[in-house]
């Protein structure tokens, strides 16, 4: 493995998981806070109000 490849691999091992976790986390917040599907909205209703999300 060349020096560049080793460097790229080291960066990948730290950045890729971080990017994936960031997207996953924001995805979870979008589902609990913003998704307007009726069942989801009703279940998360009080939380959305109390946490300052736009609700309805």
């Amino acid at each position: 493995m060349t020096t560049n490849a080793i460097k790229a691999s080291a960066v990948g091992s730290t950045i890729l998981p971080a990017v994936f976790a960031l997207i996953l986390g924001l995805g979870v917040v979008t589902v609990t806070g913003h998704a307007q599907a009726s069942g989801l909205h009703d279940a998360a209703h009080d939380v959305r109000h109390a946490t300052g999300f736009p609700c309805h």
Partner: protein
Amino acid sequence: MTLLTMCATQLVSPATKTMFSRILTSALFAGAAAGLIAALLQLYFVQPVLLHAELYEGGDLVHFGADPVTAHPELPGMFAEPVRDGLSIIFTMLTYTGYALALVALMSIAEQQGREINGRTGLLWGLAGFVAFHFAPGLSLAPEVPGVAAADVGVRQVWWTATVATAGVAMWLIAFGGNLVSYLIAAALLIAPHVVGAPEPDTFAGPVPTEIGALFAARAFGIGMAAWVLLGSFAGYFWQAEGKRANAAA
């Protein structure tokens, strides 16, 4: 080696796996713990205000233009509606776990750049998260009780998301920018969404007394700040503890 094989090799490399499980484990512990505390605080301090507002939203109480109304109607107690309150606990824990995943991901990047991450510095991370996710959007779209007049929910969600994104970048620049230009960009990013303006309703038609609306917004901010500061501290603590554990195992 093709690009695809290189990506695949990187994805499954032991270092990547270790890093990902460290992020995931710390975020799950921190998010679940802070989320549970947030949920209990919300049920005790915010939920009664919300239930009070719903009496006006549903027409059980009428305030404006009518005779004076008692400020202390009988409200259901904590856990009087177990399914509703149970769902609130689950969804608060999920929401804070989502916040935690994003927070720990950014912590891992900051640590790679030589920043110290622990329970104490985590307090500041939590405060920054509160500003980005609660305070910045709430400054123009105040946490609302049920029954207040508001613009279309889709439009508000777009403004909310844009404001959280710009405030998040601004908080990173303030923390790690380290020069005047980045502070100025951060200030512009923080102010811009409020100069553009949040979506507002055309008319006021909400039946809820202002006293209830104001108390609700204040309580939502207060609990949000407490929960975020705890989340940041927990995330920093678990991030450090998981790192030590991984190093010991290696």
